[in-house]
């Protein structure tokens, strides 16, 4: 296997001696982006010795992405060349670069070489670029070349013919030499059809930013990656001191060959509810627990998670309303010791949906599931998760994928959903979730002088459930279905 940025060499003399012909696995040659999540999305990284475009509006994170990539790839072999052109002066680029954790001053000037070619381009126009590249290749032998911004060079051309000629000559040169090139530019989606560099590019990634009220959402998207599979769609990211923090979009899992749903029932931990469900819920199923405020959803969710901890099943409780202290108090009110429950495997998580994107919440949840080998999970509540999602379709896709992941992994889950009134009908997301969930429970609250709570099982899969409306009571011992 060759390493990225090297010419593949097969010594035939040796082959003869050993009688073998090592293959040249081009598909295995990848240049890591310096960002693990980006590499996951890119199917392992950018193809080595390729030409790639990193596009996005000013401030979208292109330069940071490229800088993280070059510092991660910098080593003692061949240097990396970063051309700044007419978009941003070199001094400005380097000044802000120093604030990032990946910046390493020791690599500057030898392993990472920044060169401002703006003056040459301003004087001689875009025709100056190819000779500059040729000079760099023959004197520095760079393994990576970044041109920031390439669109600024392109826009110097006087005619379409000049642009095409410049792009053709640059492509021919970069293709002849073993280097991976990144052309950064403030391109828009419409430019993809117009600018010739998009036709010759092996990879195209986009950084975009969307304003939502008082916060911004940023997305990373792969448009094209020749000869490689990649994770399609928009992947949220944040810019941090460490560079880009990317949250790969959750997709439905591959159903393993021979996968069979679990055939074991588990207890909900709610007195009387297991009997209503024909002996508990099937392991790996998802239960939608709907009801108005004060009906007892959080109580049931906590009982379910606490029961899991008692049974030695790591349980994760994701909540978006009560902070950890409030939740501890609620657990104590149920007669349980929160410290003991946590020692037994209960993981209580509070996330503010106001500040977070759904992507980051989901990524954090899956990280906890993996690390804690979680078997039970409660999301309290779906409505809060929905407020963290800006796109209803995206939310639906996420929830569908979540349910599938839980089923394949044997994670039994309860998803709480707050209704307006005692009905489940009329809410688009709720209807969708009813369809996706294995079980649907509806809690209701009535009464004027005395609050009367009731529970009804609307749906189960594979169970002869109790079809009656059953009164429930919340006491110091928790919620119980009355006989």
């Amino acid at each position, binding site marked *: 296997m060759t390493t990225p*940025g*090297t010419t593949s*060499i*097969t010594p035939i*003399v040796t082959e003869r001696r050993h009688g073998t012909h090592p293959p*040249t696995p081009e598909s295995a040659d990848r240049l890591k982006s310096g960002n693990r999540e980006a590499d996951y999305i890119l199917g392992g990284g950018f193809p080595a010795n390729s030409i790639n475009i990193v596009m996005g509006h000013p401030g979208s994170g292109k330069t940071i992405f490229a800088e993280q990539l070059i510092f991660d790839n910098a080593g003692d072999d061949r240097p990396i060349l970063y051309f700044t052109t007419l978009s941003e002066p070199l001094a400005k680029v380097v000044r802000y670069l120093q604030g990032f954790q990946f910046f390493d001053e020791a690599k500057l000037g030898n392993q990472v070489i920044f060169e401002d070619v703006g003056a040459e381009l301003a004087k001689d126009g875009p025709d100056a670029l190819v000779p500059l590249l040729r000079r760099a290749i023959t004197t520095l032998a760079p393994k990576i070349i970044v041109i920031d911004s390439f669109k600024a060079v392109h826009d110097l051309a006087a005619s379409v013919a000049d642009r095409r000629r410049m792009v053709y000559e640059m492509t021919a040169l970069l293709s002849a030499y073993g280097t991976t090139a990144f052309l950064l530019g403030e391109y828009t989606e419409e430019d993809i059809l117009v600018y010739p560099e998009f036709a010759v590019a092996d990879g195209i990634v986009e950084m975009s930013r969307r304003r939502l009220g008082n916060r911004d959402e940023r997305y990373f998207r792969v448009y094209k990656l020749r000869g490689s599979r990649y994770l399609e769609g928009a992947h949220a990211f944040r810019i941090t001191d460490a560079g880009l923090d990317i949250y790969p979009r959750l997709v439905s899992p591959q159903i393993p060959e021979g996968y069979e749903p679990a055939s074991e029932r588990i207890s909900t931990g709610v007195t009387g509810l297991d009997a209503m469900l024909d002996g508990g819920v099937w392991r790996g199923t998802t239960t939608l627990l709907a009801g108005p405020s004060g009906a007892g959803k959080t109580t049931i969710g906590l009982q379910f998670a606490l029961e899991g901890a008692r049974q030695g099943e790591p349980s994760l409780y994701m909540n978006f309303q009560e902070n950890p202290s409030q939740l501890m108090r609620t657990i104590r009110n149920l007669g349980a010791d929160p410290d003991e429950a946590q020692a037994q495997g209960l993981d209580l998580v509070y996330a503010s949906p106001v500040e977070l994107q759904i992507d980051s919440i989901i990524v954090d949840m899956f990280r906890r599931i993996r690390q804690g080998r979680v078997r039970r999970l409660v999301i309290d509540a779906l409505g809060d998760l929905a407020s963290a999602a800006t796109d209803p379709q995206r939310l639906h896709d996420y929830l569908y994928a979540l349910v599938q992941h839980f089923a394949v992994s044997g994670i039994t889950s309860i998803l709480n959903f707050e209704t307006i009134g005692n009905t489940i009908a009329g809410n688009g997301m709720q209807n969708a979730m009813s369809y996706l969930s294995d079980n649907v429970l509806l809690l209701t609250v009535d009464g004027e002088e005395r609050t009367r709570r009731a529970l009804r099982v609307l749906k189960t899969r594979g169970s002869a459930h109790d079809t009656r409306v059953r009164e429930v009571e919340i006491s110091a011992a928790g919620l119980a279905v009355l006989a």
Partner: protein
Amino acid sequence: MGQNDNGKARILIAERDRSVRELQGVFLTNAGFAVEFADDGQVALDRVRQEPPALLITEILIPKIDGLTLCRLVRNDAALEGMPVIVFSILAAGGRANDAGAAAFLRKPLVESTFLAAINGVMMTMPTGTASAATAVGR
């Protein structure tokens, strides 16, 4: 055989890609070789028979006579017995280059260090009588 008038080892390259030729020319000249190019396989074969170089480097995808056929013709010519051929191609054809009798196969794109290392490696294995190449290799 294989030297120019200045005593430099002469390398003939059958290659049509202008950018590749340009870079090969720079790298090999800087390394102390004399470089000559041929646009197609027929021109390369004629030139090799007329004045054998120290080394022939050929792309497979060249007009008239492809690089592998060119390699076989050279290998079957007793007069060119000591002249090695390196196949340098965009194609992943190490096995076929081996079968054609190439001394080494290099996959594009071009990287100066591995390109020169391959050339030097092949020239080092040449018979002592072709020491002209070794002069340049020592650079």
